[in-house]
């Protein structure tokens, strides 16, 4: 049995660890709430863009627009969203598993692919894989990315798609279903899909300047941007939520460990006392004889 000294110092170090994991848990919880609120804030934007698109579709053919054009898929661009930091449970490994599945599927149907990695963990993972080429890497995006980062990502994928370098663009991210459930998900952003809005908020006798085509271009671009933004925010909320759970488990484990160690230390102390008493009474017996 280990000495009480050793056990004491182990208990102290586990207590320190517990303090840290507890703090991380609380931080992650509050960040998760903020990300969750942000995911809701972009809803009016998406709705307005969809209404505009519905109104436009009665004036011009949406399907012929370059961003809506469907081609046979020979090359595919995958945008993988993971985290910058670890200690988030299975967050990164889940999304990477989905990514590897996609790469395998492409391999089997002889589709070549290229990747944009968002988040340091994604970048490190993608860099080790030989099946894909890396188009670019984004690291240290803020919790609520501003428009410049979003537009940069948009610009990269739009140029690739319109130029015909890639025939489809998919985003791999973790969908935030609830604070206890997050699913790795893949969505296709290009070629763009088109859903009619319930009610068109735009009058029919509207002038479009400079032209319907150019306005359509702007609207389509915004809709796709909103999709990517939503994915980024969802991924962030999922990350914080999974980190919160992971840190909660770590805190619970540390507490269990402290209990076990305390029990062991008490036993060690008691056995030391018992032994000492036995020695003393043994000594007294010896003196009496």
């Amino acid at each position: 049995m280990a000495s009480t000294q050793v056990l004491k110092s182990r208990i102290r170090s586990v207590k320190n660890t517990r303090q840290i994991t507890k703090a991380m848990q609380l931080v992650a919880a509050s960040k998760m709430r903020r990300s969750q609120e942000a995911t809701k804030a972009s809803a009016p934007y998406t709705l307005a863009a969809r209404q505009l698109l519905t109104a436009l579709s009665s004036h011009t053919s949406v399907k012929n627009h370059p961003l809506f054009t469907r081609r046979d898929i020979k090359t595919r661009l995958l945008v993988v969203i993971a985290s910058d930091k670890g200690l988030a449970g299975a967050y990164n490994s889940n999304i990477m598993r989905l990514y590897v599945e996609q790469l395998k599927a492409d391999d089997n149907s002889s589709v070549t692919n290229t990747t944009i990695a968002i988040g340091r963990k994604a970048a490190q993972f993608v860099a080790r894989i030989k099946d894909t080429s890396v188009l670019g890497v984004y690291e240290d995006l803020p919790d609520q990315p501003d428009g410049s980062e979003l537009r940069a990502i948009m610009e990269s994928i739009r140029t690739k798609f319109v130029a015909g370098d890639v025939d489809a663009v998919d985003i791999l991210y973790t969908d935030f279903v609830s604070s206890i459930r997050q699913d790795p998900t893949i969505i296709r952003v290009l070629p763009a899909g088109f859903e009619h809005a319930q009610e068109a908020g735009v009058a029919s006798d509207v002038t479009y300047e400079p032209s319907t085509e150019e306005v359509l271009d702007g609207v389509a671009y915004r809709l796709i941007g909103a999709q990517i933004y939503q994915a980024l925010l969802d991924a962030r909320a999922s990350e914080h939520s999974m980190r919160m759970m992971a840190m909660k488990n770590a805190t619970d484990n540390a507490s269990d460990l402290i209990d076990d160690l305390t029990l062991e230390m008490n036993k060690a102390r008691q056995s030391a006392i018992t032994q000492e008493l036995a020695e003393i009474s043994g000594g007294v017996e010896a003196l009496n004889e």
Partner: protein
Amino acid sequence: MHLQLITLAGIKVDDEIYEMIAPTAAGEIAVFPEHEPLVTLAIPGAIAIRHKKGDPDNRLEYFAISGGIIEISQKAIRVLVDEADHGDDIIEAESQAALERAIKMRDQAENQVERDHAHQLVDRHQVRLKVAELRRRHKR
């Protein structure tokens, strides 16, 4: 006339106004009540809002916007932009420093993705700087 300024981060303005000046692909336009219905493209720049008729220029409210779409009907304007920063939140010296950093980053970019990112940052900070200057000029 009702104005809604909708961004990805939420609705920034939802208010009755008198006049809005906005940068579009065909130059700056000023929109007053009873404007003819129009949908047009906004370019990065400064939006100025006059809340009441007769408000002086130094009471104008400014927003630095990225590109987007402006939708005008008889009684309402809807501005759909990726982001809009309120003029009061922009600090000129900070924007200047950020712009210089962005330009440096653009010059040192190693691949297309980095270059795209830096380009966007340069645009963003140029617009913010412009808004800061406009405000300073009118506050005098």
